[in-house]
């Protein structure tokens, strides 16, 4: 899900920032290697020694949060650099790491890319710097994304728990007054909407791996795993995954769901024109939609995703970022403090949530009335943040990735994307995709579980 504007849009909204600063005078630890706990004295010394830090991120206006940090630690001078969003950012990061120079101290990483940087030992384990203590400040599943095992690789910046944005007026026209509670209801509603209004109830982005993986996540599918060393788990064609895929195949083949490629002009216009009566999206979606479909303000509502079992409350995640400290940083203490400050300091985290509209993983922000009680006119005065804050507590905690998600997404586009766009059997395509992924992993020297 890299290249491409789609990624850009996703990354923008779901993006994260990180911090990267550091101070000089820190303990002479070589990157990544130090396991001794850093003492408060070390931290005080590091934070008062004049230091220059570089921070690579594509979050717009992150300078505002960085300014708060610099005000608090005047000795530290942070340079923010935007080297691109998504793929270009990772390419440059990899090149700099490979070259051994020019890498930033702190870099934004989307959750699914963390393992690919853990793989070549490019990230600093943050536990000796006290990152463990932050675990309780974040929703569990987000913390698990940055700390799947004993190490902490990054600080969560924003997340994208998934929900259902829909056009209340179009659904009402089709006689549906409540958002569908289960996927069965959703299928029934899709039929009614198509027959009575001509709209699709929503669009399944043909090449949008993030969305499908989010659906997998909700259904309890665990397609990927990585032990941090040489063993990966690839299981994209499990029975549960095929159940999800079969559901969509059915709707797509009945022409109740469109399969346009998303995040391009055609799709934007489809959202604004009522071609799609809804969008199954992440917590960054509501703000994004507001900018895209301005003319339909007041007609939209938000609801949780339909459920597989009636009465359950489960969701998946799509997008979001964290800020990691590079193992090559010469000022790891200050760098860690920057990554922490941006995403943990109350005023900074609140700013990210209310000014940059990044959906927060911090429990304190999620519970803050200033955030949660905001009423959105676009959604008819609904407290959309509160809804997604509730959804955020229902995301499965154990979802993991493989250290080559670039390849996973690009093969999804080709193998799955073609089948979805052509209204073929999505479940059957999972088998092909599985074979491709296993072959690549083996060729790359991984042990596949």
């Amino acid at each position, binding site marked *: 899900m890299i290249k491409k504007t*789609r990624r850009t849009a996703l990354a923008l909204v779901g993006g994260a920032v990180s911090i990267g600063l550091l101070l000089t005078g820190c303990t002479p630890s070589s990157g990544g290697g130090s396991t001794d706990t850093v003492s408060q004295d070390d931290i005080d010394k590091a934070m008062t020694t004049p230091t220059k830090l570089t921070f690579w991120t594509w979050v717009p206006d992150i300078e505002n949060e960085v300014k708060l940090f610099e005000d608090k630690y005047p000795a530290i001078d942070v340079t923010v650099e935007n080297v691109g969003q998504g793929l270009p950012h990772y*390419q440059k990061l990899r090149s700099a790491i490979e070259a051994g120079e020019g890498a930033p101290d702190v870099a934004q990483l989307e959750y699914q890319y963390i393992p690919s940087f853990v793989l070549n030992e490019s990230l600093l384990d943050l536990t000796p710097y006290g990152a463990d203590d932050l675990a309780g400040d974040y929703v569990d599943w987000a913390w698990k994304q940055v700390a799947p095992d004993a190490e902490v690789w990054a600080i969560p910046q924003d997340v994208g728990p998934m929900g259902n944005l829909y056009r209340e007026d179009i659904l009402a026209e089709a006689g549906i007054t409540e958002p569908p509670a289960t996927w069965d209801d959703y299928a029934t509603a899709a039929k009614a909407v198509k027959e009575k209004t001509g709209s699709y109830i929503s669009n399944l982005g043909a090449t949008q791996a993030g969305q499908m993986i989010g659906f997998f996540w909700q259904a309890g599918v665990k397609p990927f795993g990585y032990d941090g060393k040489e063993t990966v788990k690839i299981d994209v064609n499990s029975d549960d995954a095929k159940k999800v895929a079969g559901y969509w195949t059915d709707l797509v083949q009945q022409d109740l769901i469109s399969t346009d490629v998303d995040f391009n*002009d*055609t799709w934007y216009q489809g959202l604004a024109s009522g071609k799609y009566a809804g969008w199954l999206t992440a917590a960054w979606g509501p703000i994004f939609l507001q900018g895209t479909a301005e003319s339909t303000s007041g007609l939209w509502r938000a609801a949780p995703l339909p459920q597989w079992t009636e009465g359950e409350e489960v969701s998946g995640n799509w997008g979001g970022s964290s800020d990691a400290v590079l193992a090559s940083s010469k000022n790891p203490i200050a760098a860690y403090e920057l990554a922490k400050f941006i995403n943990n300091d109350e005023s900074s985290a609140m700013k990210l949530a209310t000014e940059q509209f990044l959906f927060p993983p911090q429990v304190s922000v999620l519970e803050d009335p200033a955030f949660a009680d905001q009423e959105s006119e676009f959604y008819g005065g609904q407290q959309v943040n509160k809804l997604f804050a509730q959804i955020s507590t229902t995301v499965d905690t154990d979802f993991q990735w493989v250290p080559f998600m670039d*390849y996973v997404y690009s093969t999804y586009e080709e193998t799955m994307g*073609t089948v979805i766009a052509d209204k073929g059997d999505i479940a059957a395509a999972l088998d092909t995709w599985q074979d491709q992924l296993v072959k690549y992993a083996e060729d790359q*020297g991984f042990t596949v579980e």
Partner: protein
Amino acid sequence: MSATPALTAERPAAPPPRRRTSTTKRRQYRAAYLFLVPFFVVFITMLVVPLVYAGYLSLFESKLIGGQAFNGLGNYIRALTDPLFLEGLGRVGLFFIVQVPIMLGLALFFALALDTFRARGSKAIRLLIYMPYAVPAVVATLMWGYLYGPDFGPLAQIARAAGLGTPEFLSAENMLGSMMNIVTWEFVGYNMIIMYAALRSIPAELYEAAEIDGAGQFRMAWSIKIPAIRPAIMLTVIFSVIGSFQLFAEPSLLSIIAPNVVINSYTPNFYAYNLAFVNQELNYAASIAFLLGIVIAVVSYIVQLGAQRRERRERSLS
């Protein structure tokens, strides 16, 4: 008149007897080499060194687990049996065979038309035809991507209004044709200018002689103009070989709007890019790039050889 004789034929059979170079001569030589130095410095550092380095890289294999290891010609063997690479090559081959004759045919037609009717307004027309070339390929592709759009693209809307249904410019079957159209639109003007410039350098006496012999405009175009500018046409063909086989900007941008059609291996160049930056197979990408270079060299050579043989045959007939 037939084509200009090949230069080789004119070269003296043996060099003149060697004489001691005079001081003046030596000084001239020194100055000549001095003037050449900047070129060679840039040429070597920017072209030869990276090329050698890429060649070196292509002999290794790099894995995410286990790092780099010498692999001999393994990457090349893999490439030659890689269906994605071969398909991509087939695609640009087809592109070359279909698109280049259309593009150059149009360019030649416009060049001859402009040369024959040097009427008022011909300057403006020349500029108009050339203008697309001044539009960067990226902008052009984005623009065409919009024009091709199935829902809101103007072409689709016109077609629907005329009751023709929605044309699927971006479907798997039509994508290559859509790209050919973009490239043709972009480069007709460029090729036309090369041919037109060559036409303008034909001496007017030839036309006068032809007129006295009673030749019409078509006869003149066929028997004088086209043979006279054959070297210029050859040049545009060679440029087109390189351009077609290195197709990159168009697939890379159209893959944004149709990622399921324009797959990562759509053209060999785009494939090499994606191998390096998405799959992280830098070494394999280097060998794909090298093979592509060899294919381009071979095709260019064959094209040139064909032209030379024809020239020789014609000369022996005349």
